[in-house]
């Protein structure tokens, strides 16, 4: 069981209040999906859980550990977590395998970094593309390399921020297949997504976030069948209309 526990999280960007006294208590076997309207704060919450941002107020716990506030300890948390971004963020001057090997070699200092990097690429069907630079890969392949890079160090938990938003429908399906396969591998995963059909099928729990607060956090089936909050009902109604 993976546990996420936040109490009274506040986060400001200048005068903009991204998160407003947010509470969340989630326990889920594999996958937690963060959904909600744009600008509602789901990406900010994910970035705080991943240790990329420090909240202005409140406490955060991921798994058994409460997140520290100082940069060096947060870096250790990020090294134990995998993070995948919407726009892949691969290093353009390094080949696919060098992208995967870099953290294995210099953050985790593993003696078998090379073979492990190759195995991680092979796991996502990228062994033939190991020597290619990101610019030579398709969008779906790039995102799979990014997922391989995040998973190669065997992180405690994987965070994904809208991993398919920059992809066309076919590549989206290709990447969603990969994410669904992580479930079989029992990889704990928190993802921000706009793919409601996918969230319903692949997530165990769903947190609905709007206006900087978590309005609902429930099992995916229950949430999608009968949302409790009027905001969530309106949001789903509008999205499922087309």
């Amino acid at each position, binding site marked *: 069981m993976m546990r996420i526990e936040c109490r009274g999280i506040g986060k400001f960007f200048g005068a903009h209040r991204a998160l407003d006294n947010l509470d969340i208590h989630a326990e889920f076997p594999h996958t937690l999906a963060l959904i909600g309207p744009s600008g509602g704060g789901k990406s900010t919450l994910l970035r705080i859980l*991943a240790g*990329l941002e420090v909240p202005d107020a409140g406490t955060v716990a991921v798994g058994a550990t409460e997140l520290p506030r100082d940069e060096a300890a947060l*870096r*250790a948390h*990020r*090294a134990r977590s995998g*993070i995948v*971004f919407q*726009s892949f*963020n*691969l*290093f*353009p*001057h390094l080949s696919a395998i060098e992208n995967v090997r*870099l*953290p294995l070699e*210099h*953050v985790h200092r593993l003696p078998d970094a090379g073979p492990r990097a190759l195995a991680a690429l092979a796991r996502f069907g990228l062994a033939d593309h190991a020597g290619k*630079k990101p*610019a030579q890969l398709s969008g779906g392949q790039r995102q799979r390399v990014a997922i391989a*890079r*995040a998973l190669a160090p065997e992180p405690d938990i994987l965070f994904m921020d809208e991993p398919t938003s920059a992809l066309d429908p076919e590549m989206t399906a290709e990447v969603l297949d990969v994410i669904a396969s992580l479930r079989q591998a029992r990889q704990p995963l928190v993802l921000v997504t706009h793919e409601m059909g996918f969230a319903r099928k692949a997530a165990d729990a769903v947190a609905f976030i709007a206006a900087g607060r978590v309005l609902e956090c429930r099992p995916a089936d229950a949430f999608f069948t009968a949302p409790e909050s009027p905001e969530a009902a309106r949001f789903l109604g509008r999205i499922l209309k087309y």
Partner: protein
Amino acid sequence: MNWRRWVIDTPRAPAHPFAGALLAMAGGATVTGFCYLALAGATRNWEAVWGYRAVFWKGWLLTVGIALAAMAGSLTVGVLAALARRSVILPLRGLAAGYIELVRGTPLLVLLLFFFYVVANSAGWNDRLAAGVLTLSLFSGAYIAEIVRAGIESVGASQLESARAIGLTPPQTYRFVVFPQALRHALPPLAGQFASVIKDSSLLSILGISEFTFAAQQVNSATYSTLESFLPLAVGYLALTLPVSWLSRQLEHRLRFET
């Protein structure tokens, strides 16, 4: 025949296929004519200058040494100043900004005279060569600082975020992510700056350092043959600067990647 086809070259209306060859031939003829005038003129005095070939050679070697030392020096100074310019420590940032602006606003000749005759002399420091190389390094370092800074700033915020996400420390981020990408952006202007260092080393002759230009001036005053003294001088500098730009093009090609 339409003369425009031999002169104007655009993607929609390309120049005549032989226009480039014609241009090369015209250039070759000009150089050949110049060489003929230089070598075959009745009043030319190449024998007298040939006698001083050892002076030229020693001067050229010293110029190579000065240029290499100043390139290494200015690269070190430039990278440090660029990092200081981006430092979180405010006085360090101000110091770097002041250094860069002051040096870039002053002619090298003035810096050389001031540093040697005012600063070095009052400090009792009489090594002209070391003072000259140091001044040249500090001068060129200010330009390299701006080149390096622009290169570092060309690396996008998403790259820095990605480096944080995988757990790299700030020094590791610079080493594995920022510098390799910054280098590609900085390489063409950096090569230009290195060529400038080679050329600017000629100004060290003002301090009486017997580098290449100083040697040519000596030969000229001894033989009263200006063209014969200064033509080898120009060729000697080109022999250093042309390989630098060729090498930079090779490196640029090797480091190429799409973003």
